[in-house]
C-alpha cells in the first residue's frame, strides 16, 4: 500500500518535473534559464526573420502592382509633346498614378505603398522612329527602402516594367 502511494507520488512529481517535497537544486534552475535563453534567442531570430521577409515581400508585391498599373496607364494615355514641360507634366501624371493610383491626387493623398514618393518613380520613354510616337514606356522604382524593423532593404531599378506605347500621339498638344 505504502509502495503504491509512493510510486504514484513519484510519477506525479516526475510529470511536474521535480520530486515533490524536494526543493529544486540551484544548478537545475540555472540549466532551465540557460535553455530558455538559447531557445528564446533562436525562436525570436526565426520569428523576426519571418516577419522581416514577409513584410518585405508584401511591400515588393505592392510595388509590382503599382508599377504595372502605372505602366498600363502610361501606355494608353496621350503623349503630348509640344514642349519639354508637357512631356515632364505627362511623366508627373504617370508618377502620381504609380504612387497614389490617381493622376491628380488631392492634398493629403496617401501613397498606395507606404513611404513611396513620386521622386522614386522613373518614367522613361523609349524613342520610336524620328518624329514618330515613342515605341514604349519604362516605369521603374529606384531607391525605395523597406523598413523591415530588424533590417532595411533598398530596391533600386526594380520592380521595372515596359509597356508598348499604344496611346494617341499628339506632338503639337499641350498637357491640360
Amino acid at each position, binding site marked *: 500500500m505504502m509502495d503504491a502511494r509512493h510510486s504514484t507520488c513519484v510519477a506525479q512529481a516526475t510529470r511536474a518535473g521535480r520530486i515533490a517535497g524536494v526543493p529544486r537544486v540551484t544548478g537545475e534552475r540555472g540549466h532551465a534559464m540557460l535553455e530558455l535563453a538559447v531557445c528564446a534567442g533562436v525562436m525570436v531570430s526565426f520569428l523576426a526573420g519571418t516577419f522581416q*521577409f*514577409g513584410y518585405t515581400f508584401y511591400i515588393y508585391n505592392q510595388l509590382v502592382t503599382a508599377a*504595372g498599373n502605372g505602366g498600363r496607364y502610361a501606355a494608353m494615355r496621350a503623349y503630348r509633346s509640344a514642349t519639354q514641360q508637357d512631356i515632364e507634366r505627362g511623366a508627373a501624371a504617370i508618377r502620381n498614378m504609380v504612387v497614389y493610383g490617381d493622376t491628380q491626387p488631392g492634398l493629403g493623398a496617401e501613397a498606395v505603398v507606404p513611404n513611396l514618393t513620386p521622386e522614386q518613380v522613373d518614367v522613361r520613354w523609349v524613342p520610336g522612329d524620328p518624329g514618330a510616337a515613342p515605341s514604349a514606356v519604362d516605369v521603374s522604382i529606384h531607391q525605395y527602402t523597406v523598413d523591415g524593423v530588424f533590417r532595411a532593404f533598398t530596391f533600386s531599378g526594380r520592380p521595372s516594367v515596359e509597356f508598348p506605347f499604344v496611346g494617341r500621339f499628339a506632338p503639337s498638344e499641350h498637357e491640360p
Partner: protein
Amino acid sequence: MFLLLAVMGMAFDLGRVYIARNEAQVFTDAAAMTAAAKLDGTAAGVERARDAVARLPMRWNLGTQEFTGIVVEFSADGVKWETNPKTVSGAAYARVSAPSNNLEITFLRAVGGPSSFTVPARSVAGSNPVRLTE
C-alpha cells in the same frame, strides 16, 4: 519545430509565390499588348510581334530571372489560337503565356509541401485598338 517551419514557409515561400504570380501577370499583359501592337495583317507583322515579345526586358523572381518558354499565339476571332497562323491577314488578337515560371520552395517542402511551384500567367490583347481583353 514543425509549426515554426510551417509559419516561416507561409511567410517566405507563399510571399515569393504571390510576387512571382504578380510579376508574371504584369509581364504577360505587357507582352500581349506589345504583340498586338505589331500586328498589321502581314507575316512580317507576326514575326515582329514574336521578336518584340522576346526582347521585352522584364524579369521575374524579385526581378532577377528572365522569363523562359514564352508562348505567343495569334487569332482572328479570339477563340481559335495558332502559334504559326496560316492566314496572317486576319490575325487581330495576340495571346501570350508564360507557363514555366518554376519557383523553388525553401521552407514549406520541409513540412511536406512541394519542392517547386509553377506560377503560370496568360494575357490576351486585341490589335484594333490595342487593348487587353483578358
